[in-house]
């Protein structure tokens, strides 16, 4: 009890929020210009006016296309309880036409509590689908087809797409086809027949702008003041959070984060790490949490390997290889490295000169850790010493590794 509890509770609350896509995207749904409201408008007008429609959601991965779609569908199911049924297909699983028809038939059976038989032929499946579409059209029920990874459905002859979109051209059926894809030219790769039947509505999902980002952060990380958490704790938490969010260094962190990947998903992973680093004793988030999260997001495994694990001898060998490369030797093997090592030893008079066996051992270590590798995969017959090798790390990484290695002699 005591002060531990509210901090833990807060941590649990924040973590559950970050894992729940519905919560994340609700602030986006307020503005009338957002994708949420546009999508909702299109689908709900198709449902209420009983006309067919098709739409494509485009945007980079992790931008929240499926999350927003699920949000819209959930709200629509609440508004029009019996008038919608949803069929979900995924391009990774169902790109084969027969497979897709079977899945559609199965989902329709589940929705309407009919018996589904696995032995039915694909012809019967497609007739069943068309018959169901007509029935639902008569009963004023709209079927919403959600096609995830839409671009994968366009391989082959696009039969499924054609039959779906063609069924929508008839007056008797009532359906909405929603395609979700990360390829921007998803409608260009459709066949011209299919493209002609598709209604060319596209919604673009873009990563959030800076203001939206601020709003989102506040929305996610602020604790509610009227919940089970003690009131002053929550207020103090929010005040400290506000300070952090306005800090210049935090903005820099955000910039670095979003300069390589600005999608919402990436941001959420970063926030999750930061929240997990929260100091449970003090119970508040601090700037250090975010900094450590950033460094764990942007890892450089080979550099870490260099800094942590390499012995002096191994570093020497790497430096020798680098020098050989600088001298423009196209291929060199262990023997030439040894020669170079000897040369360095002679010219710089360093105290560490190891025997050949020890060097060979260090060499093999480097091979195992993949800091160097063989240039070709052929000569398995030759011994390790004679096969040509090359460096797998760049000179910059080597330099940084050398600089930060603790016990490295100056050179």
């Amino acid at each position, binding site marked *: 009890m005591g002060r531990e509890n509210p901090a833990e509770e807060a941590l649990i609350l924040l973590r559950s929020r970050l894992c729940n896509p519905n919560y994340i995207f609700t602030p986006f749904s307020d503005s009338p210009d957002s994708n949420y409201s546009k999508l909702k408008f299109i689908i709900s007008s198709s449902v209420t006016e009983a*006309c067919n429609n098709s739409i494509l959601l485009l945007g980079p991965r992790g931008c929240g296309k499926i999350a927003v779609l699920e949000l819209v569908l959930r709200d629509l199911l609440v508004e029009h309880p019996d008038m919608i049924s949803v069929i979900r297909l995924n391009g990774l699983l169902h790109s084969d036409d027969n497979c897709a028809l079977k899945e559609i038939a199965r989902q329709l059976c589940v929705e309407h509590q009919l018996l589904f038989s696995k032995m039915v032929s694909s012809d019967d499946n497609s007739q069943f689908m068309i018959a169901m579409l007509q029935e639902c059209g008569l009963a004023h029920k709209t079927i919403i087809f959600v096609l995830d990874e839409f671009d994968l459905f366009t391989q082959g002859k696009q039969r499924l797409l054609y039959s779906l979109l063609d069924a929508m051209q008839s007056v008797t059926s009532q359906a909405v086809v929603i395609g979700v894809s990360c390829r921007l030219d998803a409608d260009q790769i459709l066949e011209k027949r299919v493209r002609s039947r598709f209604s060319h509505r596209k919604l673009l999902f873009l990563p959030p702008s800076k203001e939206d980002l601020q709003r989102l952060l506040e929305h996610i990380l602020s604790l509610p003041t009227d919940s089970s958490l003690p009131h002053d704790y929550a207020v103090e938490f929010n005040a400290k959070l506000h300070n952090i969010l306005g800090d210049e260094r935090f903005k820099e962190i955000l910039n670095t984060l979003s300069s390589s990947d600005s999608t919402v998903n990436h941001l959420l992973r970063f926030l999750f790490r930061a929240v997990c680093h929260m100091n449970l004793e003090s119970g508040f988030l601090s700037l250090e949490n975010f900094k450590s999260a950033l460094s764990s997001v942007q890892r450089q495994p080979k550099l870490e390997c260099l800094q942590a694990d390499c012995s002096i001898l191994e570093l020497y060998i790497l430096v020798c290889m680098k020098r050989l490369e600088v001298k423009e030797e196209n291929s060199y093997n262990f023997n030439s490295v040894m020669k170079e090592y000897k040369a360095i030893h002679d010219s710089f008079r360093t105290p560490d000169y190891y025997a050949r066996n020890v060097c060979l051992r260090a060499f093999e270590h480097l091979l195992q850790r993949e800091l160097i590798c063989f240039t070709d995969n052929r000569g398995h017959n030759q011994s390790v010493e004679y096969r040509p090798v090359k460096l797998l790390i760049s000179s910059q990484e080597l330099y940084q590794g050398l600089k930060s290695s603790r016990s490295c002699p100056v050179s």
Partner: protein
Amino acid sequence: MPSLVGHGTSAFPAGNDLKEIIAGKSDKHGEIRSNGESTPQKRRSTSGSPISPPSPMKWKSPRRCINASPTTPPNEIEKDSGDKLARSRKTPVKKLADSFLAKSNWNPRDTKQMSAVKEVLHVSTAPSTVVCREDEQNRVLEFCKACVEQEKAGSLYACGCPGTGKSLSIEKVKQLLLDWATEAGLQPLDVLSITCTSLTNTSEIFSKILGKHQPRKKVNGSISPLQHLQKLYSQKQQSSGMKMMLIIADELDYLITKDRAVLHDLFMLTTVPFSRCILIGIANAIDLADRFLPKLQSLNCKPTVVTFRAYSKEQILRILQQRLMALPYTVFQPQALELCARKVAAASGDMRKALCVCRSAIEMLEVELKESTSILNLSSVEKGVFDRRTAPTLEFVTKQEIDIVRVDHMVVALSRTYRSPIVDTIQSLPQHQQIILCSAVKLFRMRKKETTVGELNKSYVDICKASLIPPVGILELSSMCRVLSDQGLLKLGQSREEKLKRVTLKVDEADITFALQGVRFFRNCLQ
């Protein structure tokens, strides 16, 4: 749009040939609306002079030649002119204005009217007459009639781009043919319409044809349906004879297999001596018959080819107007319709697209309505607080009635349909990915057509160094390249080594330059 105040005003005599048109209209809902828009016609009124509507005779002929299709019932025109409207004098230029002049205002807030409009413009609503395709329909009809009369078999191939009305016209012809056969007292036809995409196996088409011929007879398993049909057709018919069968095969190119056997056999069925089928094939390729059925030429029974050309601007306009004529109110400004027809005709001539764009424009109108209602609601709440100064602005807002789809709505709808999302996406990419695209552009400018990830990395590092941005490592670079290739901006080849994967740009260089021109850094970079 001209609007009414009260009863109407007089029409000027014929000698005056100014462009003045006076229209008196009764608004459907009895309200008085003033019009803030500029109208194509000027308005003049004299007070107190009685209305003298010109005689209906004068009005019939111009209307008929513009808007009437061959089957428009004559009473429709009379009904319009019999209205309490004083008609206008037309100038040759303003003929289009006629079609909307005579109609009353549309209230887009009325949901029933809105849904009626949307239904009329939906692709799935088949119009009662198929305009602009009379020529092709007649040809097909004549061909079929000739076949039926002579009790001979024949084949026809209808081709054209998607959205040119092929399936629709053939449906109409089928209907007309059946009617004609019953009228002329001939034996009724069997009709089989198949869409070849629904066939799992291409040779299933023969079993379907056989099934139609002999619905109750069980198929003998030893010979294939094709051979069965061939046998059937090579025997001279008995006195009762089989009925003629009309086979309509839609999306014929799905039957093309590697050895082209099925398509060939299908058309050969019509050449068998006592064959009784009329085959109509529909597809997109114009030269399907030449490319895939060369042997038929030698047998001198090539199918008749009817080409459905892409719609021109005038045709699209006519079709849209014909659809909208069914509504008793005007929905579109004529310039908006013209713009739509022109753009779609220039792009593809696809009718479905034109209908889609029109519906999109109506949705723009709806959105605008919603916004203005919310503004009005807001302002009516605050009305009490405001003083007189702001009152005229509010009045202006209420007066600017949004009851017709204007050119600006159409422009937005067209740009939405034809715009590619590439420029927007590039502008919203994270910084490093944009730098990657720039480095790719620079590399491709210099010499080659494709490059590897390793070289891209070098170019990327150079750019970063030149602008003092810390570059990311090669691992992160290759994962960013993968993300870009997922989105369709780059194309990554396969290779065992990460650095040796080939990279090609899938986007036009001009698009990238255009998208990034707002940022000075990239502008300098791409010079």
